[in-house]
């Protein structure tokens, strides 16, 4: 009797425990839950985390992530409007906004990823194909800067003005896709072009163009160097001539002035009167005799001259 009671209590406790375990469920911070009864959704999605209860056995828990979820596009070869083939790799972030709708339309995340592939890849292709490459690459009409390299060596592509730009193109993709995914209970948070690269053959051509551009720049540097060097050498010749001629001019000026002054001084001294002129002539002649006659010279003198007149007569006359 006592044993039987114990067994009954034990069994009852076991059943209660089982009921408890099959009716309580935990919603984690990252999840939202839809309760289904025989596969049919019941009530609103449960979004508050913590422990919740449902009817045991007949109701089932379907949990969905409520965080932002990743989507990574398949790198895709897409032609742009100006017929350039590029690889485009996109990523997107999305979340399950309407779990019920999501559950009804897609069942689970795998279904969602494959639908997102269809929609987002498609919209990306459309958007890229409707725009030139520059529009996809550039976001603004910001003035590009080129350092020391002058404008004339640049390719025209650097100067093309864009009309839309990358930001606007991605916005177009998001807008178009948002409409379509919202029917699936999905909210598209963002989509971005992660990588854009030229396809192999185009890449080769781009490299060739880059090489040619660099060579033009190199040539420009070289000719600039030669030009500047030539200019400096020209400066050198000019400065040299200027300096030398300037010095010559100044020197001659100084000398001329000095000569003039000296001449004036001499003139003032010698030109005082008739007798000063006469005396000067005499004294200078004497000096000249002294300076010009040397021991190698012959001196032929006549007794008629002043000096030897005394040789003839003592009176000198």
């Amino acid at each position, binding site marked *: 009797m006592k044993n039987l009671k114990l067994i009954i209590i034990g069994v009852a406790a076991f059943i209660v425990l089982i009921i408890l375990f099959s009716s309580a469920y935990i919603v*984690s*911070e*990252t*999840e939202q839950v839809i309760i289904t009864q025989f596969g049919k959704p019941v009530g609103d999605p449960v979004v508050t*985390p*913590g*422990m919740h209860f449902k009817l045991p056995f007949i109701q089932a828990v379907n949990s969905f992530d409520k*965080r*932002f979820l*990743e989507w990574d596009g398949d790198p895709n070869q897409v032609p742009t409007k100006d017929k350039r083939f590029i690889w485009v790799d996109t990523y997107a*972030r999305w979340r399950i906004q309407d779990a019920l709708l999501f559950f009804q339309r897609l069942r689970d995340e795998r279904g969602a990823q494959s639908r997102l592939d269809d929609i987002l890849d498609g919209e990306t292709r459309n958007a890229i194909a409707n725009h030139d*490459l520059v529009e996809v690459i*550039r*976001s603004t009409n*910001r003035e*590009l*800067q080129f*350092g020391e*390299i002058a404008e004339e060596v640049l*390719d025209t592509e*650097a100067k093309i003005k864009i009309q839309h730009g990358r930001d606007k193109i991605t916005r177009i993709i998001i807008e178009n896709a948002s409409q379509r995914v919202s029917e699936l209970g999905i909210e598209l*948070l*963002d989509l*971005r072009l992660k*990588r*854009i*690269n*030229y396809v192999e053959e185009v*890449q080769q051509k*781009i*490299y060739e163009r*880059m090489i040619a551009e660099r060579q033009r720049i*190199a040539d420009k540097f*070289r000719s600039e*160097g030669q030009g*500047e060097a030539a*200019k400096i050498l020209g400066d*050198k010749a000019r*400065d*040299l001539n200027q300096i*030398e001629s300037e*010095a010559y001019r*100044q*020197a001659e000026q100084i000398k001329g002035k000095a000569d003039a002054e000296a001449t004036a*001084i*001499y003139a003032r001294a*010698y030109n005082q009167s008739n*007798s000063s002129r006469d*005396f000067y002539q005499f*004294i200078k002649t*004497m000096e000249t005799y*002294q300076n010009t*006659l040397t*021991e*190698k*010279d*012959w001196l032929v*003198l006549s*007794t008629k001259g002043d*000096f030897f007149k005394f040789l003839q007569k003592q009176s000198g006359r």
Partner: protein
Amino acid sequence: MQERPPFDLRDFRPPSFNPKTVRLVAIGLLVLVLLFTSIYTVEPEEVGVVLRFGKYSRTVDPGLNFIIPFWIESLIKVPVERQLKEEFGFRTEQAGVRTRYTTREYQDESLMLTGDLNAAEVEWIVQYRVADPYKYLFKVRNARQTFRDINEAIMRQIVGDRSVDEVLTIGRIEIANTVTLKVQELCDQYETGIKVDQVVLQDVNPPDPVKPAFNEVNEAQQEKEKLINQAKSEYNKVIPKARGDAQRIIEEANGYAFKRVNEAKGDASKFNSVFAEYLKAPEVTRQRIYLETMNDVLQKVGRKLITDEEATGILPLFQLGTEGGAQK
């Protein structure tokens, strides 16, 4: 042959234990589990996020922490103080005094198009911290991959708006700063809870096939500098010397001028003095000077010939050229 049953229950009979021992072991296990599920150490650079039945309950500080055991509460450690790093276009193979890097296989990450439709290989790192553990854990799934995607997209967007020269040389810092800002913006928009400390551009190179051409530009630039420097040195070799020479010529002229004028003054003064005395006795002075001069001259001159009117025939007698002035 005896048929053996597939299993014999007797083989599986549990070994018999003393009920007391069983109870002890069970209690011991229970205590162990209790300890393991209730005591946690949170390291100094971390915080612990405590969940109760999966619901966020609280954030705990570093140190020893107790939570309700048996998986009623659970604790996730998030290193909020640690600076985390993501590498793009390369990976650190082995960090150390001489860190080794590998860049192969990561070209996909680094190769990007510039605004002038050239290509460049950009390698960069981003340093970040988890500023909001709640958002980091619960708002975005796979926050790290999301963060990497954000970085790649933003870097390409920014580089796509710069010329190849800006990317390679002049715009590096500006690009890093702009990317930092924009990545932070997107991190906030995605509610990743990540705080970007800084973006640092590492090696930024033109693609390999184009590298020689870029080097050629550098060489040409060097060559330009060299030519200019050569010309400048040529200029500097000649011009300062010419300036010095010019100065010399001018100073010499000045010297000449002083000399000339002073001499003139001296001569004039001498003349004036002598003339003043001469005027007092002109005749005698004249004669004196004349005779003095003759004295000097006649002493100096080697050969003297004195002729008289009457003796005209003597000139042909001596031969010019054998002696005196004709000889050198």
